[in-house]
């Protein structure tokens, strides 16, 4: 690689990472605000006010985003919904990170029959229609806050395991893995010390791309009324509530939907930006 290409790559990366910086900054700002916001507001997410139902957004009584059909402050509820949505994002990424990376790396490194067995298990799980499964679970058990996270995590780690397995197979043929074997490094240590750190780029990128998917599943479940239960809320549930009041109180739909869209877009930009930074094939440009 000639020096000129290096320079051009650095500049394009800086331009790209501007997208990473901006979208990352917005996401952090939203997260901080969603956590602090409810403490600042004089209203609680629970208090109903039958005289002030469907109030328009106003500064006067500090109903910044107006109120909903039960007279609850929408500002606080939207931030609460944002909290839940971001929590979903974190849980989804942690589950797919821990289970997916460990499962994929072990399957890919060990190879042979164990690999085939582990990957057929993944295939079998893929074959299950997950949304229906979740709906069934929701109906069978108590509608449970935890259950949603479990369901979403269960979908997400499958893709991660496949991707990590593929990367591991190509990494284990590299000479530094052979060198580690000759030194006598035990297999578990090769997986976690030599293979996994080199998967980092792919894993980070893939997580930022699967998070929006998890958020959408949660929103979808909440929209169907199967997700987060009142008086707790999520952005999906708020959009669901907003749809029924669309004509009288459009802000009930527009504000949470807008925030959801911003969060999703930011994660997508972040993922694209990170992929470009980590992808070595970008060098040839």
């Amino acid at each position, binding site marked *: 690689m*000639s020096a*000129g290409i290096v320079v051009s790559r650095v500049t394009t990366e800086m331009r790209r990472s501007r997208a990473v910086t901006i979208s990352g900054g917005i996401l952090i700002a939203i997260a901080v605000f969603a956590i602090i916001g409810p403490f600042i507001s004089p209203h609680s997410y629970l208090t109903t006010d039958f005289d002030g139902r469907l109030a328009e957004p106003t500064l006067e009584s500090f109903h910044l985003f107006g109120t909903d059909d039960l007279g609850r402050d929408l500002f606080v509820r939207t931030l609460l919904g944002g909290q839940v949505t971001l929590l979903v994002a974190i849980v989804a990424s942690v589950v797919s990170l821990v289970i997916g990376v460990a499962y994929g790396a072990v399957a890919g490194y060990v190879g042979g029959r164990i690999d085939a067995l582990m990957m057929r298990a993944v295939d079998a799980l893929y074959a299950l229609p997950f949304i229906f499964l979740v709906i069934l679970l929701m109906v069978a058990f108590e509608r449970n806050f935890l259950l949603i996270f479990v369901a979403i995590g269960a979908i997400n780690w499958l893709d991660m395991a496949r991707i990590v397995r593929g990367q591991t197979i190509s990494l284990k043929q590299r*000479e530094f893995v052979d060198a*580690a*074997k*000759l030194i*006598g*490094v035990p*297999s578990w240590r090769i997986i976690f010390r030599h293979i996994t750190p080199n998967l980092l780029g792919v894993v980070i990128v893939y997580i930022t791309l699967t998070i929006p998917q998890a958020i959408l599943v949660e929103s979808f479940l909440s929209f169907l009324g199967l997700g987060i239960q009142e008086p707790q809320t999520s952005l999906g549930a708020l959009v669901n509530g907003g749809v029924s009041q669309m004509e009288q109180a459009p802000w009930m739909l527009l504000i949470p939907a807008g925030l959801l869209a911003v969060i999703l877009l930011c994660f997508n930009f972040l993922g694209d930006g990170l992929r470009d930074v980590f992808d070595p094939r970008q060098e040839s440009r």
Partner: protein
Amino acid sequence: MSLLKVSGLNINYPGSPPVINRLSFTIEKGEAVGLVGESGSGKTQTALAIMGLLPRNACAAGEVVFDGVNILGAPECTLNQYRTRRMSIVFQDPMSALNPYVRIGDQLKRILIEHELVGEDEVESRSLEMLQLVGLPDVERQYRSYPHQLSGGMRQRVMIAAALIGRPELLIADEPTTALDVTVQAQILGLLRQLRDTLDTALLLITHDLGVVAGNCERMLVLKDGELVESAPTRQIFTSPAHPDTKAMVTAAKRSDLLPCALKRSADERPTLEIDSLAVSYAVPGERRSRRKLDAVRQLSMTVAPGETVAVVGESGSGKTSLARAIVGLIPAQAGSMVLLGKPLKGLVESRSNASRRDLQMVFQDPVGSLNPAMRIEDIIIEPLTVHEPDRIKVNKKERVAAMLQRVGLSEALSRRYPHELSGGQAQRVAIARALVLKPKILICDEAVAALDGSVREDILELLRTEQQQSGLSLIFITHDLATVRQISHRVLVMYLGRVCELSDTESLFMRPKHPYTKALLDAMPIADPDIGIVVLSELGEAPSMMRPPAGCVFHPRCTYSVSRCGEVVPELQDFEMTSVACHRAAELDL
């Protein structure tokens, strides 16, 4: 007037130091000029600038005057008047230069049609004629083959045919033989010389190997860091190089006469490693039902004494890397036995004892690829100790890293770096340090210097020699390069298609080769001396596929001395005075 006159050529890329700095030279009609330099000296950039193929972000200034016209920075349509018709280029890797989806014949036809070189009715006959000219066997069939069906040498012949099809006045050959085996390299170089005589084409031969230039070029240009340090007739450069950098290159190239100090061998000493009739084979993918196997190593026996270096030499596909990987246990051996320091060595490396792993270490070909990109140098060097003696290492990690770095000639300042921040030579030193930290009894080097430049290669070999003298280390040195063998080994094992041809003392191997294949390898070796030049080995042909090795002696189809028995009976290894040879006619032949 000169055919090509480059004057004041500057090439730089935005934001970095210039790649080529005020380069000026000329090439006369029909002249052969060698452009020599280490990697990164700007040889290929020069070639690309002449052809007008520089990447878009390159800034080139100066003049490239071809037959009186400056073509540097000329528009594509003007350049296309020159390319193929008046000048052509052959690249290093023939596989990536040929379109894998187009038949050989069609690739040549396209060039003819694109440049309207001949009438439509002549296209076919002209393509065939060119392929015949470059010595492609069985032209009619190869004409309809795809590039992947041809061997590396045949592909390079096709590339040369494609480059010469427009009868250009100048041919630029950019490392045309670097990707090829030595015997094939000798044939391609012979072909280039022969074609130059018949077509009267001027040649700019770009290479890092002085041996390639020695017998082929009248004049030499030596590049160093983008600057022309010397330009003189080839003989003068070899006999009295003026510039210190040229001097260093020439001495490095001629150093092939240096022998390691003689080995004091006591008769009763137990060998470090004994290998008896080892066999390695792979299942051929996609043919599970027929259970076909590829025999990479067959019936191989050898011993390595303490403090001895045994070189394993062979071309690609000879099974030398499979041998190395089987010894260290990265791949399973199907038959035979190995004994390391009196204890049997069995199974894959994971199942071996810690002691045997400590005693047997390996250095790989790709210096950077054999270091984990996510680990710091200090952690890489110390990792063997953290595995084998975790309690002791916590105390004095820093000192031990520093001591190891110093031992392999690296500065302590490197310890916090990552592998990609090192040069190839530095990375190989780190790999050697990692292998030596366990104090092994035997070190296997698999093409350990093949990826390195001349002077760096010398330094690494010197380091290995010093280590050997100080600690009595045994070395198995796997290489395709006979010049390296001569510098480092006490004994040499020559392999061909998985079988041993000859096992001999280094000196007697070079002076009196007993096996025809050894002789061919020695003849093909480019010698950095313009008076010796290169022997043309056109009758030798290329190695058959390992998938279908010939019956009898595996070398007989390429052997000039073969008799009917060679195609029927596999020759046994016979012992002679200083050497063991697997050849039916070893006793009678005088090579």
